[in-house]
């Protein structure tokens, strides 16, 4: 459905996107994951025809975006990184206007707008001007505006950035719903958990280059041999990190907070010696649990960057939407 080859974008001397290639299959959700400034928006802008690639080409549904931009845009839905509807217009007017840009006749526009307002739980506020919407409502209305013409391909640039958990979940459900309807979806995010939850396939981008791509499972296989265990104790373990590291050779130990730590290793981590070691130092273990490796570990192992993409405050247990 989408074939990007050797895409490159330079701003002056700076290369924001550095010769990336990828394909997105019909009907799948493809995630484009990377930290701030990695080149996600630059890539999306080239795909939707808002910016010209310095090099490379993009074919969407057989249409060369560079040559037949308008034809390609007719089958695209676009959710930009900022919610950019018209502040002075109401939610309903905004939806109808966006539909008109794609040539929908009046009756159909109004019918679809009402349908979408309902589906996005925005009824009751459709007569308020867009500027009076909360961030979450804005995001939802922006997404509604992007799909009102039933696009075959949907581009979402950080659809859940800056909105609360409930709205984010609604957005994810909507995206999954669109996939059910057969829409091909390209979504950028810097939220790994989100990508894990909704994407069929992913590409990691860092400094304008794709460092890995594949299905979530394929990517996870790269780290599945890694082990991690979270240990909660009754006293501060800070002074023991060095000792533990020496005792359990080849492991990396991170202190999470005063009374808990994370042990990572390529090998199985035996529990008993660990408990014994700690108790010899007068510390009891309250809880120890294996943590399944996450996509974040994949990203870190690929880029060598220890900087997490998002801050986490919970364990890395797998949650489902």
């Amino acid at each position, binding site marked *: 459905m989408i074939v990007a080859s050797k895409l490159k974008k330079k*701003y002056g001397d700076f290369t924001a996107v550095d010769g990336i290639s990828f394909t997105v299959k019909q009907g799948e959700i493809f995630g484009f994951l990377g930290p701030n400034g990695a080149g996600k928006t630059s890539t999306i*802008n080239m795909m*939707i*025809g*808002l*910016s*010209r690639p310095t090099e490379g080409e993009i074919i969407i549904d057989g249409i060369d975006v560079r040559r037949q931009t*308008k*034809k390609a*845009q*007719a089958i*695209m839905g*676009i959710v*930009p990184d*900022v919610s*950019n*509807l*018209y*502040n*002075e*217009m109401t939610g309903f007017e905004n939806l109808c*206007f*966006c539909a*008109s*840009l*794609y*040539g*929908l*006749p009046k009756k159909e526009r109004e019918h679809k707008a009402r349908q979408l307002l309902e589906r996005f739980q925005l009824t009751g506020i459709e007569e308020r001007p867009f500027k009076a919407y909360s961030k979450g409502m804005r995001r939802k209305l922006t997404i509604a505006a992007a799909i009102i013409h039933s696009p075959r391909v949907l581009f979402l640039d950080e659809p859940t950035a800056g909105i609360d958990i409930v709205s984010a979940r609604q957005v994810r459900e909507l995206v999954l719903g669109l996939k059910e309807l057969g829409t091909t979806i390209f979504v950028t995010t810097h939220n790994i958990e989100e990508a894990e939850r909704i994407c069929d396939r992913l590409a990691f981008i860092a400094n304008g280059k794709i460092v890995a791509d594949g299905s979530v499972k394929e990517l996870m296989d790269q780290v599945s041999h890694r082990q991690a265990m979270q240990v909660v104790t009754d006293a501060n373990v800070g002074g023991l990190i060095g000792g533990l590291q020496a005792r359990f050779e080849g492991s990396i130990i991170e202190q999470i907070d005063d009374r808990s730590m994370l042990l990572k290793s390529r090998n199985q981590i035996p529990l008993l010696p660990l408990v014994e070691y700690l108790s010899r130092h007068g510390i009891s273990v309250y809880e120890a649990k294996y943590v399944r490796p996450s996509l974040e570990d994949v990203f870190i192992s690929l880029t060598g960057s220890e900087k997490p993409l998002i801050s986490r405050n919970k364990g890395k247990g797998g949650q489902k939407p």
Partner: protein
Amino acid sequence: MRSLIASWNILKKDVKTYYLKPPNISWGIIFPLSWTLMQALHSAKGNMSGLLPGLIAMSVLFGTTSMLAVTITFERSGRSFDRLLLAPISLGMMVGAKIAGAVIFGIFNAVVPVILVFHYIGLERVKWAMLFLGVLLVAITSALIGLLIAVSAQQVFEAQTLSNFFRFPMLFLCGLFLPLNSLPLFLRPVSYLLPLTYGTDIIKGAITRNNLMAPALSYGVLLAFATGLFFLCHYNIKRKWIL
């Protein structure tokens, strides 16, 4: 069909959300009125008729250039303009729809001075078709100048500054206040490079019959200006807004 629906709705949206707003409407009424009042205070009735063509041209020029420059810069800074760039209609159609809104607003700005024309000159002496064409062409060229300004400006205040930078010299060089043949010799070629000079001349011809150039020539020159400006805008938008 798709392009027509899209263009028509872009035009409708602009008229509704920008041009029909009270401050803009009152601007279109108060500005010409106050100018007339100012002139009326120190000129005889005979002089008034000489001033009205200029007043019409000026009202249209001011209304149109600033509106388009400001609204487009405004939409660009809020990024909603991206929606228009991403819509599956040609850039030319989209630009045309944007301009049409400003042109309508410009023509509306001519209404008050034209009513004054009734009062001072009377219906039967005016060549209405010529007056309308003159106003229309001034509105179109002014709107395109506004668009050209919008392409160059990053912020709303910049757009306003730039529009004044263009407008004021134009007013003094187009033969509105000072007859063209009383301008210093070195400035006269500049006058003939300004679309407003030809627009004013048509409107003068329609109202007081003392135009300097043949109307056909002025129409032609204005159409050429409009076409040239349109392509210049089109080229600049492609170059500067699609990065």
